């Protein structure tokens, strides 16, 4: 119920807290930070953010957005 595309929901559905124990970035397998403000899971190292929609984290790399304006500097360490 109430999953209409038009109306914005009052508050985005929160992420199941226990999931944070298991979730990592699918690309680098490194830990993520939950950003409550934007409701995203952030990989600081790679500068990407995975969205959480209706409480379901979208962990497909193609769905992630880059958090930086320019790509990370050359010589950034590879995991």
């Amino acid at each position, binding site marked *: 119920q109430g999953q209409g595309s038009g109306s914005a929901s009052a508050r985005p559905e929160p992420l199941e807290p226990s999931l944070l124990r298991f979730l990592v970035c*699918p690309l680098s*397998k490194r830990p993520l930070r939950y950003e409550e403000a934007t409701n995203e899971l952030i990989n600081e190292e790679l500068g*990407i953010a995975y969205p959480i929609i209706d409480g379901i984290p979208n962990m*497909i790399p193609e769905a992630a957005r880059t958090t930086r304006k320019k790509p990370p500097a050359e010589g950034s360490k590879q995991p």
Partner: protein
Amino acid sequence: AAGLCPCRAVLARRGGALRALCGSRRGLAAGPETHFGFQTVTEAERREKIYQVFESVAKKYDVMNDSMTLGIHRVWKDILVHKMNPSPGTLLLDVAGGTGDIAFRFINYVRSVRERQLQRKLRHHQNLSWQEIAESYQEDKSKSLGDSQVVVCDINKEMLKVGKQKAQHLGYSEGLSWVLGNAEELPFDDDKFDVYTIAFGIRNVTRIDLALDEAYRVLKPGGRFLCLEFSHVSNPLLSRLYDLYSFQVIPVLGEVIAGDWKSYQYLVESIRRFPPQEELKAMIEDAGFFKVDYQNLNSGIVAIHSGFKL
């Protein structure tokens, strides 16, 4: 496929750039040829087509399963969970678990095991005061699952949506979470889960070897891999009947019930293309699993493969 929205192309490129960023060796490129049912396609096309199949069937998925298998799929799934025999406190990762069938069964199972545990405990407490008995009921109520947890991971948004709605409708909430993810590239840390299941999903994975590698990675040492999938029937008479049923009846059911002949044609073809029991067993062993075994159900129409990470 020609009508791909332009933004998807951008995202695909970004996905490629992101992979290059972290030096991913996976190379999930468009690249090599593979099959979609009986057609030959690139890997990227196959992923796209399969995504569309499940996007299309999601709402009718359960109804179709019941019609095609005359409800027998429920028994197969029951058998899978009974074979798993999870004890309270088990952490399960159910991959390609979209509409939640395995997850719900898992929850029911550990709940009933827990109830029996509690009953046994109470029967031994003959000399408790009423106060103590009331207290024990309360504390155990909050742990009706005994810390068991299931994470349902699926690559398809529509399937997960259906699953989540079902869960709400049936009253499942505790110990259950949903993640949109790719079986070939799981967003989970190493050595985390007690059991990994994939029921009627591995057939739709494009790189089965990668999915098996990932399954191995995320399981704890001692963890169990369980795969329930359509397999090969060796009995020639049964095989003929099965073929007849598959190719003549199922796509028609698909058209009548789901208005989608093509998706069910794909289903039937994908079953024929999928490796038989021994070959899948070898692939599972290649991923590092030990004590790999399989159990045929209904003469091999379906098989449960099991392996352990040591």
